[in-house]
């Protein structure tokens, strides 16, 4: 018989990443079936209710209260885990900043300590993010909003206000920027150089900037404008401001813009602005068919091609011979040529779909690009290419780039699928990401049978990242994974294994 134990700490706040780490720690204790520490918002309480972690005390909690929910084999185990959780909460608060007794509780107080701050990095829950961003803008700061779930109307109001004030509003929901060589939120260590990047896609920016770095070149700035910036509603406000800034920047010689296909009216506005620039521009609208472009612009169909065009034709991973690398590999007998893609990066997922579709395959996804179908309309032989960072997979859980365990269930299902031919994966490293995603993945692949699906991956990141790209690649190769130099080439390897690489 299981026991559900709740404890509520009124007014106790800890950020979501810290709470998720703590939840995992408590859940891993002996005799504990499940555990979660969450703020008592209605959405979080629903998640805890679904996980059978909520009893009467938790049900009564408010959004400002921390709820500890434990389900255990016995009352003794539950109480011991609760005691541990409370102890860990006390120490996490005390260790928040050793050696500094007082910490500012507001942006205004922080600016008294760092009066020449020029950027606010905001990652509070989405419902509060706009309020914090507005305060920062009005105090003269540029803003990078990492938070997701910021209401669209709030995003529009903030970006308009930022435009009036001459301040960039980066994000929301595109947690990547590299400014003056400094990686912010989810980003990689990339050398300084001549290429300026603008992205409405976090992992798209990470892949292109990392490919540029790995080819020996560098970037001037990488500006993440938010996943909805090129929607009709937002109208590309941040993208156009970022373009103006890079166009005026003497250190930027070439510009790359990465996004899902923009709304047609917004695309026209972007193209008109590009035409007014003297700098060469690469537009990478993943999944877009064609576009009438001015003379200084080129359209890239993949992230890899965008990097190559920005590098003025230098090829990415030129020494990687797909045919030679796959010549000795065969999909085990009895398995189909079907490919399953399990992606942490949304744009990496989109890029893989584009390449599989171009080879004439039937592709289904929870985040379909034009030409792919929704998962509900998948047929037996469809490749299923999943974006595991999408909301339906991350509700109440961290993003798979932060916590690779989020991919474990999907990977286990794919490995157990008796008919699947190839599993295609991405690994995104860098700041903000998990410390060793390849080690985690390798452990999950350790005892798979020899006649399982073939596994192909790429690692987005650089040698200068804390995880070191080469060390991640070596760990994957040690686990029998074929690692390609880019996400696009990983998709091409999958096509070679299914006999469709031309």
């Amino acid at each position, binding site marked *: 018989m299981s026991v559900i134990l709740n404890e509520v700490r009124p007014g106790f706040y800890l950020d979501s990443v810290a709470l998720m780490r703590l939840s995992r720690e408590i859940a891993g204790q002996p005799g504990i079936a499940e555990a979660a520490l969450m703020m008592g918002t209605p959405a979080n309480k629903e998640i805890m209710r679904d996980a059978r972690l909520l009893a009467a005390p938790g049900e009564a909690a408010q959004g400002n209260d921390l709820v500890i929910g434990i389900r255990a084999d016995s009352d003794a185990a539950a109480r011991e885990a609760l005691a541990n959780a409370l102890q860990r909460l006390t120490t996490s608060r005390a260790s*928040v900043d050793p050696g500094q007794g007082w*910490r500012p*509780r507001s942006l205004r107080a*922080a600016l008294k300590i760092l009066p020449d701050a020029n950027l606010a990095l905001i990652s509070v829950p989405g419902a509060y993010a706009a309020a914090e961003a507005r*305060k920062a803008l009005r105090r003269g700061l*540029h803003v990078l909003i990492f938070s997701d779930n910021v209401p669209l109307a709030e995003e529009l109001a903030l970006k308009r206000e930022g435009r009036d004030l001459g301040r960039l509003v980066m994000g929301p929901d595109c947690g990547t920027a590299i400014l*003056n060589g400094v990686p912010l939120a989810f980003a990689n260590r990339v050398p300084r150089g001549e290429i300026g990047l603008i992205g409405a896609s976090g992992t798209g920016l990470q892949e292109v900037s990392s490919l540029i770095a790995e080819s020996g070149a560098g970037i001037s700035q990488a500006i993440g404008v938010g996943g909805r910036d090129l929607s009709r509603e937002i109208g590309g406000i941040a993208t156009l401001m970022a373009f103006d800034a890079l166009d005026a920047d003497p250190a930027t010689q070439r510009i790359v813009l990465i996004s899902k296909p923009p709304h047609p009216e917004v695309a026209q506005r972007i193209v008109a602005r590009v035409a007014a620039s003297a700098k060469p521009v690469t537009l990478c609208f993943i999944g877009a068919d064609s576009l009438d472009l001015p003379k200084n612009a080129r359209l890239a169909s993949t992230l890899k091609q965008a990097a190559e065009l920005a590098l003025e034709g230098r090829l990415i991973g030129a020494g990687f011979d797909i045919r030679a690398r796959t010549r000795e590999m065969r999909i085990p007998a009895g398995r189909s040529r079907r490919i399953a893609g399990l992606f942490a990066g949304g744009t990496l997922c989109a890029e893989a779909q584009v390449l599989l579709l171009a080879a004439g395959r039937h592709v289904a996804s929870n985040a379909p690009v034009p030409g792919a179908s929704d998962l509900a309309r998948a047929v037996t032989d469809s490749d299923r290419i999943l974006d595991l960072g999408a909301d339906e997979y991350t509700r109440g859980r961290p993003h798979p780039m932060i916590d690779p365990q989020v991919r474990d269930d999907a990977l286990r299902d794919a490995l157990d699928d008796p008919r699947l031919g190839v599993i295609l994966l991405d690994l995104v490293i860098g700041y903000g990401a998990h410390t060793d995603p390849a080690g985690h993945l390798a452990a999950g692949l350790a005892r798979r049978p020899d006649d399982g699906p073939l596994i192909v991956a790429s690692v987005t990141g650089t040698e200068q990242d804390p995880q070191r790209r080469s060390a991640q690649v070596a760990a994957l190769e040690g686990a029998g994974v074929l690692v390609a130099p880019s996400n696009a080439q990983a998709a091409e390897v999958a096509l070679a294994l299914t006999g469709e690489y031309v």
Partner: protein
Amino acid sequence: MTREAKPQDLFIDPIRVVNVGLETFAHELESLEVAVIHVDWRPPAGGDPQIADLLSKLGS
């Protein structure tokens, strides 16, 4: 402000960050020797996002 502010101002000066939210971002910036101050943020206005929004508009 003595002149019109522009986004590219950000490319001239070293980046100095006020971090509001996930503390891990502040630690990473510290490891890169970037000037950063972390705000010990809690949900304002008793946890009511609408009142928090209103307060920010009033300059609080």
